[in-house]
């Protein structure tokens, strides 16, 4: 049965290998640029912020910058493609064409038929996403460490082992949708919707609960404000600088009493008649404001990656279990 599954899957697998190879070549071609630009950062021994910043700007303006963004997109799109083009049609196309009636009447039980398909194409999904993520993670290592942002939501899902979890989940989700809907096109649409919902809900609602976030309330450093805006009515939004090399979940300015600070400001110091930002900062400094930040430091990157990947693999296993139960009920 493995042979036959491979025979059916061969063309798709070859296409995937070709696409992976082309993408790999693109990474190889731009890897040299990053190494060259990074030389300055590598040579730097103290006070390297400006050098690092310069490196990031130079990378952004080079071809490597384009490839960097392409790689981000590829790693989120690849699991979706796997779910839509490998998962959804796997059973749905057989049901649509009626070929399941040919397959199920060879001397192989439906369960084994399904097991072969899930195992082979599932393994290919994991391998493709894993390989893709490994080459991108290695390629982008210097950019990620310079930017200190691999744990921030967008980059996080395109590094490490998370893409493997996404891909395997998307694949089994596709198979399940195909079996339930029994038609390829609607199954593809349902798979895409399910994948987007699942992957987007992680950074939005779930990921922050997977490892204990740091909660800190240092004095507000007025020299490194991320943002300050004063409105007509005198109310104000002050946001202190984000924690470096971390994923900031929330960042508020609070009064000594613990309430969120929104002003109002004293118009004699701040605003149109206040006489400039220095006077306003000095006035804010007298209020005893504190910054309340909740964040996940970079050191939690792998903990979060393992847990999140585990969750997606567990979901995939549940769906696969459902498929084995449901296939006995199919006609």
């Amino acid at each position: 049965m493995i042979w036959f599954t491979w025979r059916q899957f061969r063309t798709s697998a070859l296409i995937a290998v070709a696409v992976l190879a082309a993408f790999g070549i693109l990474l190889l071609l731009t890897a040299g640029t990053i190494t060259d630009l990074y030389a300055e950062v590598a040579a730097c021994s103290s006070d390297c912020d400006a050098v690092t910043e310069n490196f990031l700007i130079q990378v952004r303006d080079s071809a490597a910058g384009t490839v960097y963004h392409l790689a981000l997109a590829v790693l989120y799109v690849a699991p979706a493609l796997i779910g839509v083009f490998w998962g959804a049609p796997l059973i749905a196309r057989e049901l649509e064409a009626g070929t399941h009636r040919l397959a199920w009447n060879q001397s192989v039980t439906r369960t084994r038929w399904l097991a072969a398909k899930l195992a082979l194409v599932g393994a290919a999904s994991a391998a493709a996403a894993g390989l893709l993520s490994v080459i991108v993670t290695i390629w982008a290592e210097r950019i990620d460490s310079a930017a200190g942002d691999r744990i921030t939501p967008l980059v996080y899902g395109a590094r490490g082992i998370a893409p493997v979890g996404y891909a395997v989940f998307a694949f089994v989700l596709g198979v399940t949708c195909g079996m339930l809907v029994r038609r390829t096109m609607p199954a593809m649409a349902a798979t895409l919707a399910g994948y987007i919902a699942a992957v987007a809900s992680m950074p939005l609602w779930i990921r922050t609960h997977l490892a204990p976030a740091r909660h800190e309330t240092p004095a507000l450093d007025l020299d490194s404000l991320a943002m300050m805006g004063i409105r007509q009515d005198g109310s104000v939004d002050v946001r202190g600088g984000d924690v470096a090399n971390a994923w900031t979940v929330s960042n508020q300015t609070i009064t000594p009493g613990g309430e969120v600070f929104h002003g109002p400001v004293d118009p004699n110091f701040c605003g149109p008649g206040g006489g400039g930002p220095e006077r306003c900062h000095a006035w804010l400094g007298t209020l005893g404001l504190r910054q309340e930040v909740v964040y996940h430091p970079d050191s939690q990157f792998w903990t979060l990656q393992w847990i999140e990947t585990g969750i997606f693999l567990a979901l995939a296993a549940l769906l696969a279990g459902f498929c084995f139960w449901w296939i006995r009920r199919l006609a």
Partner: protein
Amino acid sequence: MTSPVLRAEGLTKRYGQRVALSDCTLSVPPGRVVGLVGPNGAGKTTLLQLAVGMLSPTAGTIEVVGGRPASGAAQLAKVGFVAQDTPTYANLSIADHLRLGARTNPRWDQRTAEERIAQLGLDPGQKTGRLSGGQRAQIALTMAIAKRPELLILDEPVAALDPMARREFMVSLAAYTAEHRTSVIFSSHVVSDLERVCDYVIVLVASRVRIAGGVDELTAGHQRLTGTRRTAADLPAGLQVVEESHTSRQSTFVVRGGVPVEDPTLTAEPVDLEALVLAYMSQAVTSPRPEWEATR
């Protein structure tokens, strides 16, 4: 080997409110070529899909060559199935299909399969998506035969074929059944398909089995009586009327019961299989319908 190849008891399949097969009890002896006939929608496909385990019964039991349908690889190996519309993998070659058969069936007969493909004049490297409906049906039949099943089940294999392909298919099926002692059950809504190959008939109408039996027993057990106009009640006792038709002066009855009729006003004739099957099929059509249907 006298145990039945198919035994059903109270077999029923419902889809929600709709009854596809109702309280079907059958016992088909081995070594027969069984024709399953009935109008479209009578439940033929449902019965055959229950027999190969594509469907599970709502109620009742079915046993095929001594086992529960599709209960395992060993059971699957005993039954060959050619599904309606004879599906094949359009983008795979004939050789790929044969390899699928060879790799999944323990008793696969590759030589027979290759010989049949050669006889049909087909190139094994050709993709089945480019074949005609008749050729695809032959591929499906080849796969089912090369599996060397104890029971071969075919669901309307010729329904979608043109008359030429239809005849070729029936000829190759007849050749196969003559050569092998395999039991065969095949369904058709065309009664004339039967006479050429069947020696056992099951008539299924409106989800119920009307009659089942060997062709010789059935034709011997029925007769056509013609005589002056009369009602069925005027016939000699012990005869069961299957079909009656009347003109202004004459009445014709197809009756069950092969006993000689001693009434000189009636002429008795044998009934051939086709007429007999049609009589049973039309009986269902003219029989009184349930009230809810009549008042619609």
